[in-house]
C-alpha cells in the first residue's frame, strides 16, 4: 500500500512538471510577448527590444522556463504587466477569497449531499426517491449560471436581501462576508450537492444489493445497523473518492460563479488576466488551479485504493 502511495506521488510530481511545461508553452504561443503588450501598440521596435533584453525575453525558451519554475518554487511569481505589482501579492488575497468560497461550499454541500444520497438509497424505488433522483439528475445537468442568475433575480432584485455583486475586502466583517458569500456559495453548493447525492445513492444502492447485506438481514440484524454498519464501512472509501473528485470539480465551478457575482477571487483574476493578456498572472493562476486539481485527484485515487476491495481480493487469490 505504501508502495502504491509513493508510486502515485511520483507520478503526480511528474504530472505537475508536465503541467507546468504545458502552461508555460501555452502562454508562449500567445500572440505578442510580454514586452510588446507592456509597452503598448505605439512603442517603437527599439524600445520593445530593449525591454525584452531587460526582462530576459531574448533567452531561449527552456532557460526562461526553468527560471520561471524555480522562481515559482521560491516564491517569486513575477510581475503583473497591467498593475506592475508582484503577482504573488495579487494572488494572496484573491487566493484566500476563493479558498474561502470553496471551503464554505464544501462544508455545506458535502454533509447534506451524503445524507440525502443515503436516504435516497435506503428508500430506493419509493415515490420520494424517484422524485429526488430526477431532481438531482436535473440539477447536476444545469449550468451554474442559470442557478446564479435566478438566485440574483430572486434574492437581489425581488427580495433585496442580498447584493447582486459580492463586495468583499480584507476589512469586511463577518456579516458582510456572509452576505457576499451567500449567493456564490449557494449556487456552487446546489450543483455539487446534486452530483454527490447521485453518486452516493449509486454507491450505497449498489452495496445494498450485495449478498452479505442479505446475510446480515437473515441473521436478524436490524435495518439501522445493516445500513449504518455493514453498508457504510464498505462505502467510506468510494464516498471519500467521490467527495475528493467533486472538490476538484469546484476548481472549474468557481470560474463562472466568481464572474457572475463579481466575486474577488482567483478565478475572476484569471479570466480578467486572460482578456488583458497579462501573461505572468495567467501563468500563475493556471499553475495554482492545475496543481490543486491534480493534488485532489491524487488524494481521491489514494483514498479509493485504500478501500479498493480488489486489492484485498488479490491477496485472497494468492491465498487460494
Amino acid at each position: 500500500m505504501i508502495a502504491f502511495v509513493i508510486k502515485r506521488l511520483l507520478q503526480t510530481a511528474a504530472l505537475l512538471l508536465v503541467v507546468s511545461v504545458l502552461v508555460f508553452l501555452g502562454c508562449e504561443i500567445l500572440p505578442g510577448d510580454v514586452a510588446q503588450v507592456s509597452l503598448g501598440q505605439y512603442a517603437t521596435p527599439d524600445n520593445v527590444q530593449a525591454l525584452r533584453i531587460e526582462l530576459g525575453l531574448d533567452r531561449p525558451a527552456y532557460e526562461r522556463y526553468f527560471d520561471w519554475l524555480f522562481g515559482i518554487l521560491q516564491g517569486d511569481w513575477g510581475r503583473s504587466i497591467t498593475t506592475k505589482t508582484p503577482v504573488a501579492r495579487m494572488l494572496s488575497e484573491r487566493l484566500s477569497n476563493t479558498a474561502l468560497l470553496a471551503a464554505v461550499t464544501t462544508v455545506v454541500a458535502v454533509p447534506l449531499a451524503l445524507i440525502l444520497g443515503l436516504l435516497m438509497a435506503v428508500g430506493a424505488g419509493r415515490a420520494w426517491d424517484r422524485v429526488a433522483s430526477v431532481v438531482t439528475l436535473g440539477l447536476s445537468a444545469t449550468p451554474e449560471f442559470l442557478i446564479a442568475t435566478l438566485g440574483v433575480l430572486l434574492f437581489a432584485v425581488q427580495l433585496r436581501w442580498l447584493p447582486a455583486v459580492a463586495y468583499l475586502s480584507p476589512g469586511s466583517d463577518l456579516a458582510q462576508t456572509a452576505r457576499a458569500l451567500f449567493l456564490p456559495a449557494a449556487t456552487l453548493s446546489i450543483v455539487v450537492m446534486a452530483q454527490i447525492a447521485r453518486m452516493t445513492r449509486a454507491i450505497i444502492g449498489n452495496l445494498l444489493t450485495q449478498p452479505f447485506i442479505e446475510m446480515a438481514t437473515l441473521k436478524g440484524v436490524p435495518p439501522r445497523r445493516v445500513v449504518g454498519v455493514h453498508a457504510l464501512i464498505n462505502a467510506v472509501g468510494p464516498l471519500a473518492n467521490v467527495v475528493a473528485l467533486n472538490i476538484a470539480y469546484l476548481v472549474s465551478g468557481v470560474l463562472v460563479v466568481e464572474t457572475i457575482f463579481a466575486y474577488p477571487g482567483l478565478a475572476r483574476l484569471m479570466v480578467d488576466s486572460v482578456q488583458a493578456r497579462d501573461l505572468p498572472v495567467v501563468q500563475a493562476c493556471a499553475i495554482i488551479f492545475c496543481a490543486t486539481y491534480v493534488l485532489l485527484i491524487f488524494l481521491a485515487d489514494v483514498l479509493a485504493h485504500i478501500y479498493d476491495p480488489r486489492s484485498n481480493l488479490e491477496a485472497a487469490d494468492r491465498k487460494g
Partner: protein
Amino acid sequence: MSTVAASRPEINVTLWISTTLLILCGFVAFFGPWILPQDPTDFVTDQPFAKAQAGVWLGSDYLGRDILSRLMNGARITLAMAFAATFLAHLIGDSLGLLAAIKGGWVDAFISRVADVILSLPKIIVGLVVVAALGPSVPVIVILAAVVYAAGVFRIARALGNDIVAMDFIKVAKSRGEGTGWVLFGEILPHVVRPLAADFAIRMSFAMLFMSSLSFLGLGVQPPLADWGGLVRENLGGLSAGSLAAVYPALAIAVTSIALNLLVDALGEQKVDQKGTR
C-alpha cells in the same frame, strides 16, 4: 433460473417529456432561419430590455433586439457546436478505446497515459489557456472540447471493450485466428453500441455546458455570432433591472442538457461514471 423483474415497470413520464423537448430543440435548430419571428439583428424596440409584447414574445435584449429570435438562432450554433465536438470526441475516443481493449500491451499503456494526463487537468482552465493562446473562434473551441472529452470517451470505450474482451467468445474468435477487424466490428461492436450511444447523448450535454461556459466568460463564440452562453453574457446587465433577458438563454441550455440526461436515464442506460462530475 430466469430473472424476475424487481421493480414495477413505470409509465415513463420522463421519457416522453425529454423526447418531446429534444425533438423541439432539434426542430428549432434545423428550421430556425425560416421560422424566426424577427430578424435577430434588427432593433425592434426603442428601449433595451423591454418587456414581452406582441411580436417580441420574450422581450428585447440589451440593444433592443428580439430575444426569442436570437435565442432560436443561437440554438443552431449551440447545438451544432455541441454535436460536432461530441462527434469528434467519440470518433477519436471510441476507436482508440476499443483498439486499446483488443490490442492491450503497450498500445493500451501508451494511449492510456496520454488520456490520463488530459483527464487530470481541469477542463475549463485548459480552455482558458488555449483560447487565450489561439484566440476564440468556433473551430478552436470545438476542437478543444473534442480533445478534452475524447479522453473521457476513451476511458469508457476501453472499459466497455475490456469487459467484452474478457468473455470466452472473443477467445474463441482469436483461436480461429480472426483479425482485429472482425473482432472489433463483428464481435464487440454490437455489445457496445447502446452504452456508447448513451454516452454520446450525455457527453453532448457536457460539451454544451462547457462551451457555453466559455462563451459566458467572453472566451467562446464572439459577436456578431451568439450562442446561448454568449447571449447570457450580453444580457447580464439587465438582471439588476429585473429583466429576464439573461435567464432565457440559460434556461434553454439547462432544459436541453436536462432533457438529454433524462432521456438516457429513462432508457435505463444511465451509467453514473466514476467521477459523477462533468
